Protein backbone atom coordinates (compact mmCIF):
# COMPACT_ATOMS: atom_id res chain seq x y z
CA UNK A 1 0.00 0.00 0.00
CA UNK A 2 1.05 3.54 -0.62
CA UNK A 3 1.93 6.05 2.06
CA UNK A 4 1.59 9.81 2.19
CA UNK A 5 4.48 12.25 1.71
CA UNK A 6 4.96 15.33 3.85
CA UNK A 7 7.45 17.91 2.58
CA UNK A 8 8.57 20.74 4.87
CA UNK A 9 10.84 23.68 3.99
CA UNK A 10 12.61 21.77 1.26
CA UNK A 11 15.47 23.63 -0.41
CA UNK A 12 17.81 22.23 -3.05
CA UNK A 13 20.90 23.51 -4.81
CA UNK A 14 23.03 22.54 -7.77
CA UNK A 15 26.32 24.23 -6.96
CA UNK A 16 25.31 27.84 -6.28
CA UNK A 17 22.07 27.52 -8.23
CA UNK A 18 19.15 27.53 -5.78
CA UNK A 19 16.81 25.26 -7.75
CA UNK A 20 14.14 24.61 -5.10
CA UNK A 21 13.04 27.21 -2.58
CA UNK A 22 10.98 26.51 0.53
CA UNK A 23 8.74 23.80 -0.81
CA UNK A 24 5.93 22.72 1.53
CA UNK A 25 3.30 20.22 0.52
CA UNK A 26 1.42 17.07 1.49
CA UNK A 27 1.05 14.38 -1.12
CA UNK A 28 -1.87 12.06 -0.31
CA UNK A 29 -1.43 8.27 -0.14
CA UNK A 30 -2.84 6.06 -2.92
CA UNK A 31 -3.53 8.91 -5.29
CA UNK A 32 -1.78 10.25 -8.34
CA UNK A 33 -0.29 13.72 -7.93
CA UNK A 34 0.86 15.65 -10.97
CA UNK A 35 3.56 18.31 -10.99
CA UNK A 36 3.45 20.79 -13.86
CA UNK A 37 5.45 23.85 -14.79
CA UNK A 38 7.78 25.17 -17.47
CA UNK A 39 11.19 23.57 -18.15
CA UNK A 40 13.77 24.33 -15.47
CA UNK A 41 11.15 25.19 -12.83
CA UNK A 42 12.49 22.56 -10.40
CA UNK A 43 9.80 19.87 -10.64
CA UNK A 44 12.28 17.16 -11.69
CA UNK A 45 14.67 18.23 -8.93
CA UNK A 46 11.74 18.02 -6.53
CA UNK A 47 10.89 14.37 -7.32
CA UNK A 48 14.59 13.50 -7.23
CA UNK A 49 14.65 14.84 -3.66
CA UNK A 50 11.88 12.40 -2.74
CA UNK A 51 14.14 9.35 -3.24
CA UNK A 52 17.46 11.08 -2.59
CA UNK A 53 18.59 10.74 -6.20
CA UNK A 54 19.31 14.47 -6.21
CA UNK A 55 22.39 13.96 -4.06
CA UNK A 56 23.99 11.47 -6.48
CA UNK A 57 25.23 14.59 -8.26
CA UNK A 58 28.39 15.64 -6.38
CA UNK A 59 27.59 19.36 -6.50
CA UNK A 60 24.01 18.94 -5.24
CA UNK A 61 22.78 19.89 -1.75
CA UNK A 62 19.45 19.60 0.10
CA UNK A 63 17.97 21.03 3.32
CA UNK A 64 14.56 20.60 4.95
CA UNK A 65 12.58 17.50 5.72
CA UNK A 66 10.68 14.91 3.72
CA UNK A 67 8.51 12.39 5.57
CA UNK A 68 7.42 9.33 3.65
CA UNK A 69 4.99 7.33 5.78
CA UNK A 70 6.55 7.51 9.24
CA UNK A 71 10.15 7.94 8.11
CA UNK A 72 12.06 11.19 7.75
CA UNK A 73 14.10 10.16 4.70
CA UNK A 74 16.92 12.63 5.31
CA UNK A 75 17.26 12.00 9.05
CA UNK A 76 16.33 8.37 9.66
CA UNK A 77 17.57 6.37 6.70
CA UNK A 78 20.25 5.66 4.16
CA UNK A 79 19.63 6.54 0.49
CA UNK A 80 19.58 2.88 -0.64
CA UNK A 81 16.85 2.03 1.89
CA UNK A 82 14.74 4.96 0.72
CA UNK A 83 15.10 4.08 -2.93
CA UNK A 84 13.77 0.58 -2.30
CA UNK A 85 10.59 2.09 -0.85
CA UNK A 86 10.36 4.89 -3.40
CA UNK A 87 10.59 3.58 -6.95
CA UNK A 88 11.45 5.79 -9.90
CA UNK A 89 10.65 5.79 -13.60
CA UNK A 90 12.77 8.08 -15.73
CA UNK A 91 12.04 10.24 -18.74
CA UNK A 92 13.89 8.05 -21.21
CA UNK A 93 13.29 4.31 -20.89
CA UNK A 94 16.49 2.88 -19.40
CA UNK A 95 16.33 -0.93 -19.25
CA UNK A 96 19.64 -2.66 -18.52
CA UNK A 97 20.88 -3.40 -22.05
CA UNK A 98 22.76 -6.61 -21.25
CA UNK A 99 19.91 -8.22 -19.31
CA UNK A 100 16.96 -10.28 -20.50
CA UNK A 101 13.42 -9.05 -19.93
CA UNK A 102 13.16 -11.38 -16.95
CA UNK A 103 16.44 -10.22 -15.42
CA UNK A 104 15.52 -6.58 -15.91
CA UNK A 105 12.37 -7.04 -13.85
CA UNK A 106 14.14 -9.19 -11.26
CA UNK A 107 17.22 -6.95 -11.12
CA UNK A 108 16.19 -4.87 -8.10
CA UNK A 109 15.66 -8.03 -6.04
CA UNK A 110 18.61 -9.99 -7.41
CA UNK A 111 21.06 -7.13 -6.93
CA UNK A 112 19.93 -6.85 -3.35
CA UNK A 113 20.77 -10.49 -2.80
CA UNK A 114 17.39 -12.13 -3.30
CA UNK A 115 17.61 -15.47 -5.10
CA UNK A 116 14.61 -17.74 -4.41
CA UNK A 117 13.82 -18.75 -7.97
CA UNK A 118 10.16 -19.68 -7.45
CA UNK A 119 9.34 -16.43 -5.66
CA UNK A 120 11.26 -14.41 -8.26
CA UNK A 121 9.24 -16.09 -11.04
CA UNK A 122 6.02 -15.09 -9.32
CA UNK A 123 7.14 -11.51 -8.72
CA UNK A 124 8.33 -11.09 -12.31
CA UNK A 125 5.00 -12.33 -13.66
CA UNK A 126 2.98 -10.18 -11.27
CA UNK A 127 5.04 -7.06 -12.02
CA UNK A 128 4.80 -7.53 -15.78
CA UNK A 129 1.03 -8.07 -15.48
CA UNK A 130 0.75 -4.94 -13.34
CA UNK A 131 2.62 -2.96 -15.97
CA UNK A 132 0.44 -4.40 -18.77
CA UNK A 133 3.41 -5.91 -20.56
CA UNK A 134 3.01 -9.60 -19.70
CA UNK A 135 0.99 -10.66 -22.74
CA UNK A 136 3.46 -9.03 -25.12
CA UNK A 137 6.63 -10.56 -23.68
CA UNK A 138 5.70 -13.76 -21.83
CA UNK A 139 7.16 -16.00 -24.56
CA UNK A 140 10.51 -14.20 -24.73
CA UNK A 141 11.19 -13.50 -21.05
CA UNK A 142 14.67 -15.01 -21.03
CA UNK A 143 15.42 -15.00 -24.76
CA UNK A 144 15.17 -11.31 -25.53
CA UNK A 145 17.09 -8.36 -24.18
CA UNK A 146 15.21 -5.49 -22.57
CA UNK A 147 16.79 -3.22 -25.17
CA UNK A 148 15.13 -5.14 -28.02
CA UNK A 149 11.64 -3.92 -27.08
CA UNK A 150 9.98 -0.84 -28.54
CA UNK A 151 10.24 2.48 -26.65
CA UNK A 152 6.77 2.16 -25.11
CA UNK A 153 7.38 -1.45 -24.10
CA UNK A 154 10.76 -0.48 -22.61
CA UNK A 155 9.07 2.16 -20.46
CA UNK A 156 6.50 -0.37 -19.21
CA UNK A 157 9.41 -2.75 -18.56
CA UNK A 158 11.02 -0.02 -16.44
CA UNK A 159 7.74 0.40 -14.57
CA UNK A 160 7.63 -3.38 -13.96
CA UNK A 161 11.23 -3.23 -12.74
CA UNK A 162 10.31 -0.46 -10.29
CA UNK A 163 7.19 -2.34 -9.11
CA UNK A 164 9.08 -5.60 -8.54
CA UNK A 165 10.83 -4.29 -5.42
CA UNK A 166 7.36 -3.55 -3.98
CA UNK A 167 7.71 0.19 -3.31
CA UNK A 168 5.18 2.35 -1.49
CA UNK A 169 5.69 5.36 -3.71
CA UNK A 170 6.28 5.53 -7.47
CA UNK A 171 7.96 8.64 -8.87
CA UNK A 172 7.57 9.23 -12.60
CA UNK A 173 9.68 11.92 -14.23
CA UNK A 174 7.95 12.70 -17.54
CA UNK A 175 7.42 8.98 -18.17
CA UNK A 176 5.67 9.44 -21.52
CA UNK A 177 7.47 12.41 -23.04
CA UNK A 178 9.68 10.21 -25.24
CA UNK A 179 6.77 8.02 -26.40
CA UNK A 180 4.20 8.09 -29.19
CA UNK A 181 0.50 8.77 -28.41
CA UNK A 182 -0.51 5.08 -28.33
CA UNK A 183 2.24 4.17 -25.86
CA UNK A 184 1.44 7.32 -23.89
CA UNK A 185 -2.19 6.32 -23.45
CA UNK A 186 -1.08 2.86 -22.30
CA UNK A 187 1.15 4.43 -19.65
CA UNK A 188 -1.71 6.67 -18.55
CA UNK A 189 -4.11 3.72 -18.24
CA UNK A 190 -1.46 2.04 -16.19
CA UNK A 191 -1.09 5.00 -13.82
CA UNK A 192 -4.84 4.93 -13.41
CA UNK A 193 -4.76 1.29 -12.32
CA UNK A 194 -1.65 1.55 -10.17
CA UNK A 195 -2.74 4.45 -8.02
CA UNK A 196 -5.04 2.23 -5.96
CA UNK A 197 -1.95 0.39 -4.70
CA UNK A 198 0.80 3.01 -4.80
CA UNK A 199 1.25 6.70 -4.14
CA UNK A 200 2.18 8.13 -7.51
CA UNK A 201 3.94 11.40 -8.21
CA UNK A 202 4.17 12.24 -11.89
CA UNK A 203 6.07 15.12 -13.47
CA UNK A 204 4.63 16.09 -16.81
CA UNK A 205 4.78 18.78 -19.47
CA UNK A 206 1.50 17.62 -20.85
CA UNK A 207 -1.34 19.37 -19.01
CA UNK A 208 -4.01 17.12 -20.49
CA UNK A 209 -2.07 14.21 -19.05
CA UNK A 210 -2.08 15.79 -15.61
CA UNK A 211 -5.82 16.43 -15.93
CA UNK A 212 -6.47 12.83 -17.01
CA UNK A 213 -4.51 10.89 -14.40
CA UNK A 214 -4.08 13.01 -11.28
CA UNK A 215 -6.40 13.94 -8.41
CA UNK A 216 -4.04 16.63 -7.20
CA UNK A 217 -1.78 18.95 -9.17
CA UNK A 218 1.04 21.23 -8.13
CA UNK A 219 2.30 24.12 -10.25
CA UNK A 220 6.00 24.96 -10.04
CA UNK A 221 7.62 28.14 -11.28
CA UNK A 222 11.23 29.31 -10.89
CA UNK A 223 12.03 26.87 -8.09
CA UNK A 224 8.92 27.64 -6.03
CA UNK A 225 5.61 25.89 -5.72
CA UNK A 226 3.03 28.44 -6.73
CA UNK A 227 -0.12 26.44 -6.15
CA UNK A 228 -1.14 22.97 -5.02
CA UNK A 229 -4.76 21.90 -5.16
CA UNK A 230 -7.29 19.45 -6.56
CA UNK A 231 -6.62 18.96 -10.25
CA UNK A 232 -10.04 20.15 -11.43
CA UNK A 233 -9.60 23.32 -9.36
CA UNK A 234 -6.14 24.04 -10.83
CA UNK A 235 -7.43 23.63 -14.36
CA UNK A 236 -10.80 25.36 -14.03
CA UNK A 237 -10.45 27.94 -11.30
CA UNK A 238 -6.83 28.47 -10.14
CA UNK A 239 -6.32 30.87 -7.25
CA UNK A 240 -3.03 32.27 -8.50
CA UNK A 241 -2.75 34.51 -11.55
CA UNK A 242 0.52 32.81 -12.62
CA UNK A 243 -1.09 29.37 -12.62
CA UNK A 244 -3.91 30.69 -14.77
CA UNK A 245 -1.45 32.28 -17.21
CA UNK A 246 0.46 29.02 -17.50
CA UNK A 247 -2.49 26.68 -18.03
CA UNK A 248 -4.11 29.02 -20.53
CA UNK A 249 -0.83 29.07 -22.46
CA UNK A 250 0.06 32.71 -21.91
CA UNK A 251 3.64 31.75 -21.05
CA UNK A 252 5.91 28.73 -20.66
Amino acid at each position, binding site marked *: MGVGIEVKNLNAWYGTNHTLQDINLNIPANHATALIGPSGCGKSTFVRCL*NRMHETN*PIARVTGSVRIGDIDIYADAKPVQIR*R*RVGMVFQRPNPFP*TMSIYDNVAS*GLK*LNGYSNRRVLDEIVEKSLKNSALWDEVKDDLRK*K*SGASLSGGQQQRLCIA*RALAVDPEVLLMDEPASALDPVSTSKIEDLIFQLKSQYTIVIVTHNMQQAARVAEKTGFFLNGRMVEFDATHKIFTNPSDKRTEDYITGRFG
Partner: protein
Amino acid sequence: MSAETFKFRTRMRTLTDSAVTALSILATVLVVAPLVAIFAYLVFKGASSLNLDFFTKIPKPEGESGGGMANAIVGSGILLGVASLLGVPIGIGGGIFLAEFGRGTKFANAVRFTADVLNGVPSIVMGLAVYSLVVVQQKTFSAFAGGVALGIMMIPTVCRTTEEMLLMVPHAVREAALGLGVPNWRSVLSITVKTASPGIITGCMLAFARVAGETAPLLFTALGNSFMSTSLNHPIEALPLQIYIFANSPYDDQHRLAWAGSLVLIVLIVLAVSLVRYVTSRGVLKGAS
Protein backbone atom coordinates in the same frame (compact mmCIF):
# COMPACT_ATOMS: atom_id res chain seq x y z
CA MET B 1 17.86 27.78 -58.72
CA SER B 2 17.60 26.90 -62.41
CA ALA B 3 17.07 23.33 -63.54
CA GLU B 4 20.58 23.39 -65.07
CA THR B 5 22.30 24.32 -61.78
CA PHE B 6 20.21 21.74 -59.96
CA LYS B 7 21.30 18.97 -62.35
CA PHE B 8 24.91 20.07 -62.15
CA ARG B 9 24.88 20.01 -58.34
CA THR B 10 23.25 16.59 -58.30
CA ARG B 11 26.00 15.28 -60.59
CA MET B 12 28.70 16.79 -58.39
CA ARG B 13 27.18 15.20 -55.30
CA THR B 14 27.03 11.77 -56.93
CA LEU B 15 30.67 12.20 -57.92
CA THR B 16 31.78 13.24 -54.43
CA ASP B 17 29.85 10.34 -52.97
CA SER B 18 31.61 7.84 -55.27
CA ALA B 19 35.01 9.40 -54.61
CA VAL B 20 34.63 9.18 -50.80
CA THR B 21 33.36 5.60 -51.03
CA ALA B 22 36.33 4.65 -53.22
CA LEU B 23 38.78 6.29 -50.78
CA SER B 24 37.37 4.46 -47.78
CA ILE B 25 37.52 1.13 -49.64
CA LEU B 26 41.15 1.88 -50.51
CA ALA B 27 41.91 2.66 -46.87
CA THR B 28 40.29 -0.60 -45.79
CA VAL B 29 42.43 -2.54 -48.26
CA LEU B 30 45.55 -0.80 -46.97
CA VAL B 31 44.63 -1.78 -43.41
CA VAL B 32 43.99 -5.42 -44.21
CA ALA B 33 46.77 -5.90 -46.79
CA PRO B 34 49.79 -6.05 -44.42
CA LEU B 35 48.13 -8.66 -42.20
CA VAL B 36 47.14 -10.80 -45.19
CA ALA B 37 50.61 -10.42 -46.71
CA ILE B 38 52.39 -11.38 -43.48
CA PHE B 39 50.11 -14.31 -42.89
CA ALA B 40 50.44 -15.58 -46.47
CA TYR B 41 54.22 -15.30 -46.31
CA LEU B 42 54.34 -17.17 -43.02
CA VAL B 43 52.18 -19.96 -44.42
CA PHE B 44 54.40 -20.08 -47.50
CA LYS B 45 57.65 -20.27 -45.49
CA GLY B 46 56.50 -22.08 -42.39
CA ALA B 47 53.68 -24.48 -43.22
CA SER B 48 55.97 -27.04 -44.87
CA SER B 49 58.00 -27.43 -41.64
CA LEU B 50 54.90 -28.05 -39.53
CA ASN B 51 54.41 -31.64 -38.49
CA LEU B 52 53.50 -33.57 -35.38
CA ASP B 53 57.13 -33.40 -34.17
CA PHE B 54 56.97 -29.63 -34.14
CA PHE B 55 54.28 -29.73 -31.47
CA THR B 56 55.57 -32.72 -29.47
CA LYS B 57 59.39 -32.62 -29.59
CA ILE B 58 61.91 -30.24 -28.08
CA PRO B 59 64.65 -28.74 -30.28
CA LYS B 60 67.49 -31.00 -31.44
CA PRO B 61 71.09 -29.92 -30.75
CA GLU B 62 72.48 -27.48 -33.28
CA GLY B 63 73.27 -29.01 -36.65
CA GLU B 64 70.92 -31.96 -36.26
CA SER B 65 67.72 -31.87 -38.26
CA GLY B 66 64.23 -32.48 -36.90
CA GLY B 67 62.96 -31.57 -33.44
CA GLY B 68 60.20 -29.16 -32.54
CA MET B 69 59.15 -26.32 -30.30
CA ALA B 70 56.94 -28.10 -27.76
CA ASN B 71 58.88 -26.49 -24.91
CA ALA B 72 58.37 -23.01 -26.36
CA ILE B 73 54.64 -23.52 -26.96
CA VAL B 74 54.12 -24.77 -23.39
CA GLY B 75 56.40 -22.01 -22.08
CA SER B 76 54.52 -19.26 -23.90
CA GLY B 77 51.28 -20.67 -22.52
CA ILE B 78 52.60 -20.57 -18.94
CA LEU B 79 54.15 -17.10 -19.32
CA LEU B 80 50.94 -15.68 -20.77
CA GLY B 81 48.90 -17.39 -18.07
CA VAL B 82 50.98 -15.79 -15.32
CA ALA B 83 50.90 -12.44 -17.17
CA SER B 84 47.12 -12.52 -17.53
CA LEU B 85 46.57 -13.51 -13.89
CA LEU B 86 48.61 -10.47 -12.91
CA GLY B 87 47.72 -7.95 -15.60
CA VAL B 88 43.99 -8.49 -16.13
CA PRO B 89 42.70 -8.15 -12.54
CA ILE B 90 45.02 -5.25 -11.68
CA GLY B 91 44.25 -3.51 -14.97
CA ILE B 92 40.48 -3.93 -14.68
CA GLY B 93 40.54 -2.94 -11.02
CA GLY B 94 42.51 0.20 -11.85
CA GLY B 95 40.16 1.03 -14.71
CA ILE B 96 37.13 0.67 -12.45
CA PHE B 97 38.76 2.97 -9.90
CA LEU B 98 39.56 5.60 -12.54
CA ALA B 99 36.09 5.60 -14.08
CA GLU B 100 33.84 5.05 -11.07
CA PHE B 101 35.33 5.75 -7.67
CA GLY B 102 38.20 8.16 -8.22
CA ARG B 103 36.72 10.24 -11.03
CA GLY B 104 37.99 13.81 -10.88
CA THR B 105 40.34 13.26 -7.91
CA LYS B 106 44.00 14.22 -8.05
CA PHE B 107 45.01 10.68 -7.18
CA ALA B 108 43.05 9.30 -10.15
CA ASN B 109 44.67 11.80 -12.49
CA ALA B 110 48.08 10.72 -11.19
CA VAL B 111 47.19 7.04 -11.71
CA ARG B 112 45.99 7.76 -15.26
CA PHE B 113 49.18 9.64 -16.08
CA THR B 114 51.31 6.84 -14.63
CA ALA B 115 49.46 4.24 -16.69
CA ASP B 116 50.05 6.25 -19.86
CA VAL B 117 53.75 6.60 -19.09
CA LEU B 118 53.99 2.88 -18.26
CA ASN B 119 52.44 2.17 -21.64
CA GLY B 120 55.27 4.07 -23.29
CA VAL B 121 58.12 2.38 -21.39
CA PRO B 122 60.21 0.38 -23.88
CA SER B 123 59.76 -3.35 -23.36
CA ILE B 124 63.50 -3.94 -22.91
CA VAL B 125 63.45 -1.51 -19.97
CA MET B 126 60.56 -3.49 -18.50
CA GLY B 127 62.73 -6.60 -18.75
CA LEU B 128 65.62 -4.89 -16.97
CA ALA B 129 63.36 -3.56 -14.22
CA VAL B 130 61.90 -6.99 -13.54
CA TYR B 131 65.43 -8.45 -13.70
CA SER B 132 66.54 -6.27 -10.81
CA LEU B 133 63.27 -6.56 -8.86
CA VAL B 134 62.55 -10.27 -9.27
CA VAL B 135 65.43 -12.18 -10.87
CA VAL B 136 68.12 -10.70 -8.62
CA GLN B 137 66.01 -11.31 -5.51
CA GLN B 138 65.13 -14.88 -6.54
CA LYS B 139 68.73 -15.48 -7.64
CA THR B 140 67.50 -17.25 -10.78
CA PHE B 141 65.86 -16.52 -14.11
CA SER B 142 62.35 -17.90 -14.02
CA ALA B 143 59.01 -18.31 -15.73
CA PHE B 144 57.55 -16.30 -12.87
CA ALA B 145 59.82 -13.33 -13.62
CA GLY B 146 58.95 -13.50 -17.32
CA GLY B 147 55.24 -13.61 -16.51
CA VAL B 148 55.59 -10.61 -14.20
CA ALA B 149 57.34 -8.60 -16.92
CA LEU B 150 54.61 -9.39 -19.47
CA GLY B 151 51.87 -8.86 -16.88
CA ILE B 152 53.11 -5.37 -16.01
CA MET B 153 53.09 -4.56 -19.71
CA MET B 154 49.43 -5.61 -19.93
CA ILE B 155 48.28 -3.40 -17.04
CA PRO B 156 48.17 0.03 -18.75
CA THR B 157 46.31 -1.19 -21.84
CA VAL B 158 43.75 -3.11 -19.81
CA CYS B 159 43.39 -0.26 -17.32
CA ARG B 160 42.83 2.53 -19.83
CA THR B 161 40.47 0.52 -22.07
CA THR B 162 38.43 -0.51 -19.03
CA GLU B 163 38.17 3.11 -17.97
CA GLU B 164 37.11 4.30 -21.41
CA MET B 165 34.56 1.53 -21.84
CA LEU B 166 33.04 2.23 -18.42
CA LEU B 167 32.75 5.94 -19.21
CA MET B 168 30.77 5.02 -22.34
CA VAL B 169 28.04 3.34 -20.28
CA PRO B 170 25.10 5.78 -20.37
CA HIS B 171 24.37 7.76 -17.20
CA ALA B 172 20.75 6.58 -17.45
CA VAL B 173 21.82 2.98 -16.85
CA ARG B 174 23.65 3.92 -13.64
CA GLU B 175 20.66 5.98 -12.47
CA ALA B 176 18.34 3.05 -13.12
CA ALA B 177 20.39 0.86 -10.80
CA LEU B 178 20.70 3.50 -8.07
CA GLY B 179 16.97 4.20 -8.36
CA LEU B 180 16.26 0.58 -7.45
CA GLY B 181 18.05 0.97 -4.14
CA VAL B 182 21.13 -0.91 -5.27
CA PRO B 183 24.28 0.17 -3.37
CA ASN B 184 26.78 2.02 -5.53
CA TRP B 185 29.51 -0.65 -5.40
CA ARG B 186 27.02 -3.33 -6.41
CA SER B 187 25.68 -1.18 -9.22
CA VAL B 188 29.21 -0.59 -10.51
CA LEU B 189 30.16 -4.28 -10.46
CA SER B 190 26.90 -5.86 -11.59
CA ILE B 191 25.51 -3.22 -13.95
CA THR B 192 28.15 -0.80 -15.23
CA VAL B 193 31.01 -3.28 -15.62
CA LYS B 194 28.65 -5.89 -17.06
CA THR B 195 27.29 -3.42 -19.59
CA ALA B 196 30.82 -2.46 -20.61
CA SER B 197 32.17 -6.01 -20.56
CA PRO B 198 32.39 -6.59 -24.35
CA GLY B 199 34.69 -3.58 -24.64
CA ILE B 200 36.68 -4.55 -21.55
CA ILE B 201 37.23 -8.06 -22.93
CA THR B 202 38.43 -6.57 -26.22
CA GLY B 203 40.92 -4.46 -24.26
CA CYS B 204 42.22 -7.55 -22.43
CA MET B 205 42.57 -9.42 -25.71
CA LEU B 206 44.51 -6.53 -27.26
CA ALA B 207 46.88 -6.48 -24.31
CA PHE B 208 47.22 -10.27 -24.41
CA ALA B 209 47.97 -10.35 -28.15
CA ARG B 210 50.49 -7.55 -27.74
CA VAL B 211 52.57 -9.21 -25.02
CA ALA B 212 52.24 -12.68 -26.59
CA GLY B 213 54.72 -11.58 -29.25
CA GLU B 214 57.13 -9.75 -26.93
CA THR B 215 60.74 -10.92 -26.92
CA ALA B 216 62.72 -8.17 -25.22
CA PRO B 217 61.16 -8.34 -21.73
CA LEU B 218 61.85 -12.08 -21.62
CA LEU B 219 65.58 -11.88 -22.43
CA PHE B 220 66.60 -11.08 -18.82
CA THR B 221 63.67 -12.72 -17.07
CA ALA B 222 62.47 -16.02 -18.59
CA LEU B 223 65.87 -16.38 -20.31
CA GLY B 224 64.91 -19.39 -22.46
CA ASN B 225 65.31 -23.13 -21.93
CA SER B 226 66.14 -25.79 -24.52
CA PHE B 227 64.33 -28.42 -22.48
CA MET B 228 60.73 -28.92 -21.50
CA SER B 229 59.96 -27.10 -18.25
CA THR B 230 56.67 -26.34 -16.55
CA SER B 231 58.12 -24.96 -13.33
CA LEU B 232 57.53 -21.34 -12.41
CA ASN B 233 60.90 -21.21 -10.64
CA HIS B 234 63.10 -22.21 -13.54
CA PRO B 235 64.01 -20.53 -16.82
CA ILE B 236 61.46 -21.25 -19.49
CA GLU B 237 61.29 -21.07 -23.28
CA ALA B 238 58.84 -18.84 -25.16
CA LEU B 239 57.91 -18.85 -28.85
CA PRO B 240 59.16 -15.34 -29.62
CA LEU B 241 62.46 -16.01 -27.79
CA GLN B 242 62.97 -19.28 -29.66
CA ILE B 243 62.13 -17.63 -32.97
CA TYR B 244 64.62 -14.86 -32.23
CA ILE B 245 67.40 -17.33 -31.43
CA PHE B 246 66.70 -19.70 -34.32
CA ALA B 247 66.34 -16.89 -36.83
CA ASN B 248 69.83 -15.69 -35.84
CA SER B 249 71.41 -19.11 -36.07
CA PRO B 250 73.46 -20.21 -39.12
CA TYR B 251 71.54 -23.47 -39.63
CA ASP B 252 68.83 -23.85 -42.29
CA ASP B 253 66.93 -26.33 -40.16
CA GLN B 254 66.60 -23.78 -37.38
CA HIS B 255 65.54 -21.10 -39.86
CA ARG B 256 62.73 -23.38 -41.00
CA LEU B 257 61.68 -23.98 -37.39
CA ALA B 258 61.70 -20.22 -36.79
CA TRP B 259 59.30 -19.69 -39.71
CA ALA B 260 57.04 -22.47 -38.50
CA GLY B 261 57.21 -21.03 -34.97
CA SER B 262 56.13 -17.60 -36.23
CA LEU B 263 53.18 -19.14 -38.02
CA VAL B 264 52.19 -21.11 -34.92
CA LEU B 265 52.53 -18.01 -32.72
CA ILE B 266 50.14 -15.99 -34.89
CA VAL B 267 47.66 -18.87 -35.21
CA LEU B 268 47.71 -19.48 -31.46
CA ILE B 269 47.06 -15.79 -30.73
CA VAL B 270 44.15 -15.73 -33.19
CA LEU B 271 42.79 -18.97 -31.68
CA ALA B 272 43.06 -17.66 -28.11
CA VAL B 273 41.35 -14.39 -29.00
CA SER B 274 38.57 -16.16 -30.94
CA LEU B 275 38.04 -18.66 -28.14
CA VAL B 276 37.62 -15.94 -25.51
CA ARG B 277 35.26 -14.05 -27.82
CA TYR B 278 33.21 -17.19 -28.44
CA VAL B 279 33.01 -18.17 -24.79
CA THR B 280 32.10 -14.67 -23.60
CA SER B 281 29.58 -14.08 -26.38
CA ARG B 282 27.55 -17.17 -25.57
CA GLY B 283 24.38 -16.34 -23.74
CA VAL B 284 24.26 -12.88 -25.28
CA LEU B 285 20.65 -11.95 -25.88
CA LYS B 286 18.90 -11.01 -29.05
CA GLY B 287 18.81 -7.28 -29.51
CA ALA B 288 21.29 -6.40 -26.77
CA SER B 289 23.32 -3.45 -27.91
